[in-house]
C-alpha cells in the first residue's frame, strides 16, 4: 500500500488550497504523485482517488489523457526529444541515433542500470533553439549528436 510521505502530504494540502473546488486540483495532485512515485501506476491512481474521493476509474481516465502523466515506469533520467517540424529539420534524428547507440535501448525502454529512458515528444515550444530535449524539469537546446553524448555522460556520472 503506497502513501504520500509527510512532506508530500503537506504539498497535497497546499495544492487543495489553491482552488475553490477540489476537482481542478486533480491534475496538480497527479503531477505530485508522479514526482513521488515515479509514474502513475494503477495503484497510484487508486490511491489518489481514495485520497480525493473520486472513483479510481475517474483518476485513471484523467491520467491516461495526459501524455506527461506517465503510465509506465521510466529511468531516473527520462529524455524527451522533440520530433516536431523545427527540431526535425534541425536534426532530431541524428541525436536520437546517438542516444540509441549510447544507451542501447529503444523508446520507452529503460537501461539496465535504471538510469536512462527516452522517448520522442511533441513540440516543446523551443523551436528557436532546435533541436531541443527535456530531461526532468530541464531543457537542453541546440542539440548535436556530440552534445547529446556529453549530456548522457554527465548524467551517467551524476
Amino acid at each position, binding site marked *: 500500500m503506497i502513501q504520500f510521505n509527510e512532506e508530500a502530504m503537506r504539498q497535497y494540502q497546499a495544492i487543495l488550497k489553491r482552488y475553490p473546488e477540489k476537482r481542478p486540483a486533480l491534475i496538480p495532485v497527479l503531477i505530485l504523485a508522479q514526482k513521488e512515485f515515479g509514474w502513475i501506476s*494503477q495503484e497510484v*491512481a*487508486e490511491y489518489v482517488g481514495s485520497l480525493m474521493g*473520486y*472513483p*479510481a*476509474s*475517474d483518476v*485513471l*481516465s484523467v491520467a*491516461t*489523457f495526459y*501524455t506527461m502523466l506517465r503510465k509506465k515506469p521510466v529511468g531516473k533520467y527520462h529524455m524527451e526529444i522533440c520530433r516536431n517540424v523545427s527540431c526535425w529539420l534541425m536534426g532530431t534524428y541524428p541525436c536520437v541515433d546517438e542516444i540509441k547507440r549510447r544507451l542501447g535501448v529503444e523508446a520507452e525502454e529503460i537501461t539496465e542500470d535504471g538510469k536512462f529512458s527516452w522517448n520522442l515528444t511533441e513540440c516543446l515550444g523551443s523551436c528557436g533553439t532546435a533541436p531541443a530535449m527535456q530531461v526532468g524539469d530541464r531543457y537542453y537546446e541546440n542539440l548535436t549528436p556530440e552534445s547529446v553524448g556529453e549530456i548522457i555522460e554527465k548524467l551517467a556520472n551524476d
Partner: protein
Amino acid sequence: MPKLTINGQEIEVEPGTTIIQAAQVAGIEIPHYCYHPDLPVDGNCRMCLVEVERMPKLAISCATLATEGMVVHTNNDRVKESVRGVLEFLLVNHPVDCPVCDQAGECRLQDYYMVYGLHTSEIPLEMKVRKQKVVDLGPMVVLDQERCVLCSRCIRFFDHVTHTGEMQFFGRGDHVAIGTFENRPLDNPYSGNVVDICPVGALTSRDFRFKCRVWFLNSTDSVCGGCSTGCSMRIDHRDGTVFRLLPRRNPEVNKSWLCDEGRMSFHELAAGERVRRPMIKGRDGMQAPVVWEEAVRSVDSKLKEIRDNHGAGSILGFASPSATNEALFLFKQYMAGQVGVTRFEFRADSEDKSVTEQEDNILRRVDKHPNSMGAIKLGLVSKEFGGIEGAIESAREGKLRAGVIIYFKPLVRRPTDEEAESRVAELIRAVEYSVVLAAHKTDWLAEASVVLPVTAWSEENGSYTNYQGRVQLARRAVTPAGDMRPVWQVFALLLAVSGADISWSTAADVFESLTETEPAYRGITYDEARLPGALVADI
C-alpha cells in the same frame, strides 16, 4: 411556447425542449448515439446535426433549444452529407464483425449505415486500431472496446444515475477506449442497463448473448413482477421461452431503467417444477389428479358445507400480493360474495408496511411482490385477526377450519422468503380443509386438500397496482405446458358453479367489472392502464 418548423412541419413545444425532442414529437427521427432522454446531454457523437436557417453552421439538435420561429431541416443534402461524414469517422476503426456480434439486428451503426453511410471504408482492416475484445465486466455485461462509438452513455449512466462512476474513457485520440478500472467487474445492482443503452455492440448482455438472434424474438408489453415498484418492461420471447426482459420507458415509474434482479427474474420463474393438473386429496390422504370441472365443484360444495356447519368466520381467504388485480377481484367476489367470507389476508411477510419502502434510492423496493397495493386497495386484509400468524393460531384453536390460499413464490428472492413460505405451509397444515392455487411445486403442497394449477406472471393478461397506486397492464407472453388457468379464471369458474349471474370471458372483461365495482378503481379504462398507467383513487 416556442413554435418552430421542422422539415416544413410546424409544431409548438414546451419551452426548454431541444430540437431532437421537438422532432420526436413531430414524428421525425434524427439519428443519434450519445443523446438519451434520461441522461444528461453530452453532444459528443455529432450524429444529430441539423441545419437551422440563419445559423452559420450545422447545429447538434440534442443540445440546441427549440426557439420561436426556428426553421430546421433534418434531411437535406447538406445535413445528409455531414452525417455521412460523421458516421464514416465513427466507423473508421470499427472491426465490422457484425456476423459474430450479438447486437446485430438492433445496432444503430448498422441502421444508420443503411440510411446515411453505404460508403466503402478507406481504412483497410489490418490498419485499424485494435483494442480489447470480450472483456468480462461481471455477471451482466461483456465489453468489446473495438465496437464502441465512445458515446459515453454508459459512463453517464454510472455517473448520474447510480453515482458509482465505474466506467470511464481511458487514453486519448483514436486509442480512447471505455472500460472499468483494471477491468474490474461491475458490481452494482443496475449494471444491466448499460447493455440496453449501448447503441452498438460494445456492451452486450452476458445472460442473453448468443442465445437468440433478436429478429426472431417476439416482444410483449409487461410490468416487472419483481417488486412493488412495478417497472414497465418488455418480455422478449420465442416459442414459449422467455429470452430477456428489457425496460419500457415510463417516465412516471422507472424512466428507462430496470434493476438487475428484475431483469433476471424470469429465470426464477423458469426454475422449479410446475403444478400442471388439478389435484384433490382422497380418503387415503394422497392427492390424485382430477379434471377442472370436478375440482371446482368439489371446492365450491365443500366450502359451503363448512360455512353452513361452522359459519363463514371459519373460512380464511388468503390472497397473494403477486396475483393480478383481476385475480384478486374475482377471488374477493367469490369468497365474500358467494361464500360470505369476511376474513381476508394476503401478507405472508410484512408487505403492507414495506410496499412503499425503498431498498435503494433508484428503483428497488423492499416488498418483492408486484401487487401488494392492489391487495390493500381491494381490502384483502383484515387487521383485527393478527395476520397469518393470527390465522395459524385460530386454526390450531379450531376456530378457523378452511383456507383458500393463492401462493406464488417471489421472483426476486430474499432471505426472509423461506420464513414467509413456511408460514403459508404452517397455515395449510393447521386448517382442516385447504384449497391452494399455486404455480410451482413445493413439498408442503402435498398436504393441501385441493391443489389448483395456475399461470404466473408473464403467462396471463392482467394488471398490477404498484406502490404509487398505479394500475399497469401486463400482457401474456408465453403459455406454459400443462392444464393451468389464470387465477381469475379459476374464480370465474367457481362463481359460475356457485350460481353468480355474471360471467367473464377475458381478463379485460374482469377489469371492466373491477372498475365498475371497486371504488378505488372506479373509472379507470383499459387504455389508461397501458402507459404510463392510471392511478387508483386514494381511499
